[in-house]
C-alpha cells in the first residue's frame, strides 16, 4: 500500500545542507500497524510528513497505491490527503476560536457539506471518543487529552484508509492514552493501515504491531 524508496530529505539552513533522512526503504501493507521510534529530532515527524504528503522528499519517492506521490502536483496531493489519509499531529494543530465539533468537521467543508450535516457526521465520532459533553467547547478550553481526541476525530472524519499519528500519546495523561489506544485498536480491527511514531514503549506494548522500525541518524533499522 505504501512504499518508501531510497527516500532522503535534506534541509537547508543558512546555505548549509542538513541531512535528516538518508536512503530509507520501507513497505507498509494494507491493514498493517507500523511503529517508528527513535530519539527526539531523529526525523520521525519529517518521515511521517513525507509519507502523509505534507512534504516532499529531496530524493527518492513515496508510492501510495502505485501512485508516486512525490511527483504529483499539489492539488492531487490535497485530494489524496482528503480522501485517503488521516493525520494526527503531535501538537494537535487545532484551530483556536472554533469549537471541538467545528474543528473535527473541518475536513468536510471542502466537500460541500453544510454545517448541519457536518455537525450530524461529527457528533457520533466525538461521542465515540468520549467528548459528548465537550462538543461545543472552544478547543482552547479543553485539556490536552481532550484536544488530542478532537484531533483524532478530525483525522478520522473522512474515514481514511491510512492513519498517520505523530507521537499521539506524548501530550496526554495515562487515562487518555488508554482511551486513544482503544480507539486505535478499533481502527485496526476495521482494517485501517496505521503508521505511528513514538518513543515510549506503551504503544508498542498495547497495539498489534506488525513492523517496528528504529530511526537513528537518518537511517531506518
Amino acid at each position: 500500500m505504501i512504499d518508501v524508496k531510497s527516500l532522503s530529505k535534506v534541509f537547508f539552513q543558512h546555505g548549509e545542507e542538513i541531512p535528516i533522512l538518508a536512503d530509507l526503504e520501507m513497505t507498509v501493507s494494507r491493514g498493517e500497524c507500523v511503529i517508528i521510534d527513535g530519539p527526539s529530532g531523529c526525523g520521525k515527524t519529517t518521515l511521517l510528513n513525507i509519507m502523509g504528503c505534507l512534504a516532499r522528499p529531496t530524493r527518492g519517492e513515496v508510492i501510495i497505491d502505485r501512485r508516486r506521490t512525490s511527483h504529483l502536483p499539489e492539488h492531487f496531493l490535497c485530494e489524496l490527503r482528503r480522501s485517503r489519509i488521516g493525520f494526527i499531529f503531535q501538537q494537535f494543530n487545532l484551530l483556536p476560536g472554533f469549537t471541538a465539533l467545528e474543528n473535527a468537521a473541518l475536513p468536510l467543508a471542502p466537500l460541500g457539506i453544510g454545517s448541519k450535516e457536518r455537525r450530524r457526521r461529527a457528533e457520533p465520532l466525538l461521542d465515540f471518543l468520549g467528548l459528548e459533553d465537550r462538543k461545543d467547547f472552544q478547543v482552547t478550553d479543553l485539556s490536552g487529552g481532550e484536544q488530542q481526541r478532537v484531533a483524532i476525530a478530525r483525522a478520522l472524519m473522512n474515514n481514511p484508509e491510512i492513519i498517520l499519528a505523530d507521537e499521539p500519546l506524548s501530550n496526554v495523561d495515562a487515562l487518555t492514552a488508554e482511551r486513544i489506544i482503544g480507539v486505535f485498536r478499533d481502527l485496526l480491527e476495521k482494517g485501517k493501515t496505521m503508521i505511528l511514531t513514538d518513543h515510549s514503549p506503551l504503544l508498542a506494548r498495547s497495539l498489534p504491531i506488525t513492523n517496528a522500525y528504529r530511526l537513528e541518524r537518518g537511517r531506518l533499522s
Partner: protein
Amino acid sequence: MKLSKHAAFWPIAARNLLRYRGRTIAVLIPLLATMACLSALTFLKDGTLAEALTALSALPDVTVQRREGGRDGSTGEEILGEISRYQNVRTAQPRIWGRAEVEGEAPGEAILAGVGADLLARLSESGFSLRSGRFLRDDDRGRALVGRLYAERRGIAPGDHIDLVNESGQRVAFTVAGVFDHRARLYAGGLILTDLETARAFFNYDPGRYTDVGVYLDDPLRADQAALRISAAREGVRAFTRADLADAARREYGSRAGTSQLLWLMLLVSAGLTAWAQGSSVSLEMRKEIGVLKAIGWRTLDVIEIKMMETAMIGLIGILGGGLLAIAYLRLGAPLLSSYFLDGAGAAVPFLPIRIGWSGVFLLLLLGLAPLSAATVIPAWRTGTIDPDRAIRNG
C-alpha cells in the same frame, strides 16, 4: 464546482472574522473611515455634476461673453446686433445677471438674472413652469419670479416683497410676481428672475451693456460652428456651446473630486497595507492555520476562496457602513467638504446635491475591494503554495 462547497465556506469565513477580531477591527476602522470620505465625495460629485448638467439644459444653445483686460467684461449692443444677423441664429437675447445678497429671516445669496421680454415669454420652453402667481410681463419693473425651493424656504408667496442687496450695498425691494419651478434645483432654489431693466439698475450696468448674450439657433446641432464663427468675429468675444459648458463642469468637479479621491485613496491603500501586514508577516498563526487546513485536505484554492470571502465581507461592511456614514455626514451638511467642493457655487446652492448612482457605487466597490483583496489574497496564496509541513512548522 459544486455550489454547496462555496455555501459551506461562508460560515467558516464569517467565523474567521470573529476569531481574529483584532485583525478585523484593525482593517475595518480605516476602511470605514476611508470609504465614508470617498463615498461622500463621490455622492456629492455625482450629485453636483448631475445638477449642473440639468441646469445647463435650460441654457441657450450658445452663450456669448466678452473678455476685457483678461477678465469677464460686459457685452454690448454692437455684438448683439452682429450675432443676430448670422446664419442659423434664431434669436440672440441679452442677459444681465450676478449675485445678490438676500436679506431677511434666511440670509444668503441668490443669482438675480434679468432677461428680455422675448425670453420671459418663452420661459416654459426652457423647462420653467409656474407654481403660483404669474410670469413677468413686458412692462413689469421691480418685480421678480422666485424659485419654488427658495420661496418655500422663506415662506414667500406672490405679492410679497423681498429685499436684495447689490455689490454697492444698496438694498433694492422686489415684488414677487410668481413662483416658478424647474427640475434643476439650482434654479428652483437659488434663481430670481426679473426684467432686463430692473437687473440693469440693480447691477449698475450702463445702457446698452449686458453680462452675456444667449443665442438660440435654428439648428442646435450646428452649435459648434456658430460658436466658432461668433468667437472669431470680434477680439475678446468668447462663445460657449452647452456641450462646452458641460465639459467644463465635468472637468471642474472631476478635478476637485479627483484631488480628494486621490488623498482618500492613499488612506485606502494604507488600510490595505494594514491588512497585508496582518495577513502576512504579522500573523504567523494564520499561516500555520493555512498549513493545517491543507494538511487535512483543503486545496490552495479553497484557502484562497475563504480569504476572498473574508475580504468580501470586510469590504462590503466597510463599503456599506462607509456609505451610510457618508449619507449621514451629507445630511448634516457635509461640513468642510461642501465649502471645498461647492466653492464658487455654494452660496447660490441652498442644498447639497447628492446622487447615489450605479457608476458611483461601482467605483466605490472597486476602490474598496481591489486593494483589500490584493492585500489578503496574495499572502494567502503565497502561504497556500508552500508545503503544509513548512507552513505548520514555521508559521
